[in-house]
């Protein structure tokens, strides 16, 4: 009942920029849905219109079938986690979490019980009397989350909630947030500019660009089958190779790459993930390249190689690869399977 449906939602900023440009979206009940894109793509504005902090200039927003477009935020009953957490600095952790219950005139004893439960849910027991400024970033993040879920929202909105945490903590919180989402069964709309985070957590992702949706789909779909150069480039490391298609081959500077399907003849670009590129002894692959730099990543090595025409290409090789192929200046052959390149729409 708590799906979110946006129809033709548009927001024009003073000055005329179309921050959000006639977006249609249908987010299923209980779905973990991410809005992903670079800064300024309109993802946060979209979220703020769902929350009620911005009024759309056109379009409607339905939640659970009910038109919310002109309701003030306090009457939408959604939970929101802000990027900077927006904890009330003059109130204790318990008071912060209880705020939404107080506004709903929940009886005092009931409030205390629900605050305890919410804090237990985010594993923050024992810090009830602290002020937000006495907490670490990760703890503040948990308080913000508890404050948002204590009011039993049917929709939880998150605006880059993990952006301020360091890498290790972010990974742990990703696991926790996913588990929490599953346990509570609520619809979650998640805004992020971090493609890894979106891939990791979401059921579906809408990649946004300049106020529009560039691609919408499940993480694997978006990762494996980006339709545009923008999405291919934004989602993970990608090589983009430009050449001339003819049938099942893409012709480049004196060599050719196989294509997964026959394409109409003419200029064409393909996206190729670095982990799909296999290194071999010179002469053994599709093309020979020169190693420019090899970066040790711990569980793998990321190489930057120069192709004959001078184009750089990234390859992710297993760390067991022959050391002779990893030295700067070395020659190595590159190969990939016909199904690995992804032809891109002309953008």
């Amino acid at each position, binding site marked *: 009942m708590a799906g979110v449906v946006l129809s033709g939602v548009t927001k024009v900023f003073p000055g005329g920029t179309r921050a959000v440009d006639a977006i249609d979206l249908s987010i299923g009940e209980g779905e973990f849905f991410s809005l992903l894109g670079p800064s300024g793509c309109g993802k946060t504005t979209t979220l703020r219109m769902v*929350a009620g*902090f911005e009024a759309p200039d056109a379009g409607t927003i339905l939640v659970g079938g009910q038109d919310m477009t002109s309701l003030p935020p*306090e009457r939408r009953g959604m939970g*929101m986690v802000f990027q*900077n957490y*927006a*904890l*009330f*600095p003059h109130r204790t952790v318990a008071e912060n979490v209880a705020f939404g219950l107080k506004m709903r005139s929940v009886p005092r004893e009931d409030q205390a019980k629900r605050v305890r439960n919410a804090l237990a849910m985010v594993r923050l027991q024992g810090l009830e009397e602290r002020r937000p400024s006495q907490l670490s970033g990760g703890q503040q993040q948990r308080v913000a989350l508890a404050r948002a879920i204590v009011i039993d929202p049917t929709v939880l909105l998150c605006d880059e909630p993990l952006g301020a945490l360091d890498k290790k903590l972010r990974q742990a919180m990703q696991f926790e947030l996913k588990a929490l989402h599953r346990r509570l069964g609520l619809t979650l709309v998640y805004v992020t500019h971090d493609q890894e985070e979106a891939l990791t957590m979401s059921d579906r992702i809408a990649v946004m660009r300049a106020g529009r949706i560039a691609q919408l789909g499940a993480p694997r779909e978006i990762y494996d089958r980006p339709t545009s150069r923008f999405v291919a480039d934004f989602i993970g490391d990608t090589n983009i190779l430009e050449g001339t298609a003819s049938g099942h081959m893409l012709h480049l500077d004196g060599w050719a790459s196989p294509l997964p399907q026959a394409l109409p003849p003419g200029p064409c670009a393909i996206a190729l993930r670095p982990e799909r590129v296999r290194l071999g002894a010179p002469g053994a692959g599709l093309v020979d390249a020169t190693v420019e730099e090899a970066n040790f990543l711990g569980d793998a090595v990321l190489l930057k190689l120069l192709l004959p025409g001078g184009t750089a290409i990234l390859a992710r090789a297993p760390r067991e690869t022959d050391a002779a192929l990893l030295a700067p200046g070395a020659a190595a052959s590159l190969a990939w399977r016909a199904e690995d390149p992804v032809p891109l729409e002309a953008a």
Partner: protein
Amino acid sequence: MRAAFLSVCGLVLAFLLLPVLIVLCFAVNPDPFLAFPPSGVSTRWFVKFVTSRDFMAAFGLSLTLGVATVLIAGTMGTLASLALLRSSLPGRRALTGLFLSPIVLPTILTGFALFQLAMVSGVGRNPWILLAGHVVVATPYVMRTVLAVLANFDRSLEEAARGLGATPAQAFREVTLPLIRPGVIAGCLFAFIVSFDQFPVSLFLVSPGNETLPIAMFNYLRFDFDGTIAAASTVSILLAVALVLGIERTIGLQEYAKL
């Protein structure tokens, strides 16, 4: 290098505090003139100040006026600051700049203008006109500090409150007001000191026999010249110091120095 820095600082400090030192010396000196070092320590002038009916009446008027100014200027200044920062008023940038440069409008002008108004309108000089003058001078100080806290105020806190079910009025009462309180308190203290020490505005607007302390001191000086004035000044300084300590207690001096 460091020694040079220290001595520069010491010299400037001494120079700026020289008037205070002179007044203190004079106030405790038992003789009716200034002497370095004082020929003794006496409370004689303080007693004379405290037992003078004229001075005490003036002191009372100044205190009353200060409190009234704080109440009116504090409310008006806070509301006007909110209106300035929160509305999409055309020209609000220029207005904000104007309010943030309070000393640009000479205070003597305020006194002169209100004096004329009182005369022309026929009401004459009375305590209400005096209060109006003090409020006009003190309000920009309140606005200055309130605008400063409001400028650093994180609007997402209000949004968070709204999202949790608070109406705009509830969000203001529960979140905004408690958080801008330091600016309001600092502004009110400024307003009190400005009113209590006000000279040019009061000079134009006090009615005879109903004078504020600075004016009473000035008038006394024209005929008498002894330590009573120094004692009165010392009391003013102590009051100011007490207020600054009050700020330190409530919002912290560091916080206040930023306003």
